[in-house]
């Protein structure tokens, strides 16, 4: 099969819609287009039935007790905002302290920052050099004012899978609510809200080959019953937790995407892990000074975050424009700061600037992996020929020994 360019290897950012998902969604645009809140006619009943089915499918997949624990949202950013701000507001009489980590998604971090401005206190626990959060650090941060702990299932940059079960055991024992931003790991690594004692979980469809614009927040209804203050006022949809007409085709697509994972997820993870390792091995065999970011084993199957020492990430991405990836380099953002995730893990800034994130997914092939490996090897070699730092390295000069002028 001929390769299609650019080759998509940015599946942490988003994934293409699976055609089976699209097929499941289509009738809900034109035939069963009813408003799920319409109680007076069949259009509404059909839409409502489809939504309730979807709720049950998603709840079952994360081992929730009931579909009633699923609140549909517009996506993970909204779910994170609703979980953190909704809990903080409801439980403010109980305490004002929240614990999260420095490597969370901005939707979590910026929700916490907003709450700090409103008088809440937030502790940001650091991850280790391998991207792992130590549950003991979470436990040590808990005070009698702590109302919520929020830790992600898997990191979006380095793919490190966090010890959610261990953290959940601590929060349950200490009587603190536990929110998990499960967006990146959901479907790709086991996630079980019952066994892991998760009280709230953010999910989204577009990272699992479903449509954009639809997500969910799991909200535990018993032991403990979690209460939220809604952040969106209106018709009182979703048991008052999130007003707004439901995105029925999106919700149907979300559930279809989940049911595909239920059938194929385990085998798929194995296949993608194989492709990921093939890419890593091919690159490592040909290039020196390439470093893996994140934990070597506790990592999403499709994640490969590498720092190519002495080569700047955006410069490299420009050279490998046949492949769609992303970089922790400053140059990819307007901020001119390299990835806050890599820096908070304690990575040298030079290595953060040199990082490329490959995100493999369902539709990548062995042929693509082999092509990308050769492309990357060739271009890194070329750029190192252009790099004064690589020349110094070869001459045995330690670039850290040089007094650089920051600019």
């Amino acid at each position, binding site marked *: 099969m001929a390769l299609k360019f650019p080759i998509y290897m940015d599946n942490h950012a988003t994934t293409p819609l699976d055609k089976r998902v699209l097929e499941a969604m289509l009738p809900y645009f034109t035939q069963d287009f009813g408003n799920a809140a319409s109680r007076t006619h069949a259009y509404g009943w059909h839409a409502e039935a489809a939504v309730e089915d979807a709720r049950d499918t998603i709840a079952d997949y994360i081992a929730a007790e009931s579909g009633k624990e699923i609140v549909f949202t517009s996506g993970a950013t909204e779910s994170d905002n609703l979980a953190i701000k909704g809990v903080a507001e409801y439980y403010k009489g109980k305490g004002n302290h929240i614990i999260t980590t420095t490597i969370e998604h901005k939707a979590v971090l910026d929700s916490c920052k907003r709450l700090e401005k409103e008088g809440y206190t937030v502790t940001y626990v650091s991850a280790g050099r391998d991207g792992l959060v130590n549950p003991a650090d979470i436990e040590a941060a808990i005070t009698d004012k702590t109302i919520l702990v929020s830790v992600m299932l898997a990191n979006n940059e380095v793919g490190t899978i966090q010890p959610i079960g261990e953290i959940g055991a601590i929060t349950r024992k200490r009587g603190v609510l536990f929110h998990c931003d499960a967006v990146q790991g959901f479907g790709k690594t086991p996630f079980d809200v019952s066994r892991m004692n998760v009280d709230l979980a953010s999910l989204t469809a577009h990272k699992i080959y479903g449509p954009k614009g639809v997500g969910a927040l799991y909200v535990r209804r018993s032991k403990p019953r979690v209460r939220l203050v809604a952040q969106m006022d209106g018709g009182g949809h979703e048991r008052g937790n999130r007003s707004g007409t439901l995105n029925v085709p999106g919700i149907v697509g979300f559930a279809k995407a989940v049911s595909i994972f239920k059938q194929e997820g385990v085998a798929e993870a194995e296949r993608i892990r194989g492709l990921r390792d093939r890419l890593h091995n091919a690159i490592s065999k040909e290039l020196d000074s390439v470093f893996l970011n994140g934990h070597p084993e506790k990592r999403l199957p499709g994640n490969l975050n590498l720092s190519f020492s002495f080569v700047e990430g955006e410069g490299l991405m*420009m050279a490998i424009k046949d492949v769609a990836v992303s970089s922790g380099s400053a140059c990819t953002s307007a901020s001119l700061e390299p990835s806050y995730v890599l820096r908070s893990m304690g990575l040298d800034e030079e290595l953060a600037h040199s990082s490329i994130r490959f995100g493999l997914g369902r539709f990548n092939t062995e042929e693509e992996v082999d092509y990308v490996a050769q492309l990357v090897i060739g271009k890194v070699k070329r750029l190192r020929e252009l790099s004064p730092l690589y020349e110094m390295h070869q001459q045995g000069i330690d670039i850290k020994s040089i007094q650089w002028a920051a600019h």
Partner: protein
Amino acid sequence: MAYSDKLLDHYENPRNVGTLDKDDPSVGTGLVGAPACGDVMRLQIRVSPEGVIEDARFKTFGCGSAIASSSLATEWIKGKNIDEAAGIKNSQIAEELSLPPVKIHCSVLAEDAIKSAIEDYKAKRAARLALDGAAEAPTNSASAPISL
């Protein structure tokens, strides 16, 4: 981000990549930027006794705009005398390559690299003249300045 054809050409076919002997008295070396900032440029010039830049070489760690800016800088300064070369402004580089606003700092770095290489050459020459003219050599001229 869409880049100009000129920028892409300099990035894909960089001119004057390489290294000159930094200990050669006719060579000036400028090393600017910092790895932690994601940009390091090393620009070197070989200057004739008449003060004309006969050769220029660069190596750059950085994004495509940084590589293209330094490549263009070496192309422009070759054949110029050092005072003309020192007059090259970052805005001229930015304009030639149509750098987007977030990449203007790459052209600033290229201008600094040119100036730094010329200063290094001048410092070496001054030291040599002093050595020729006096019994004692000044001690402040040995290394390439790293400045911004």
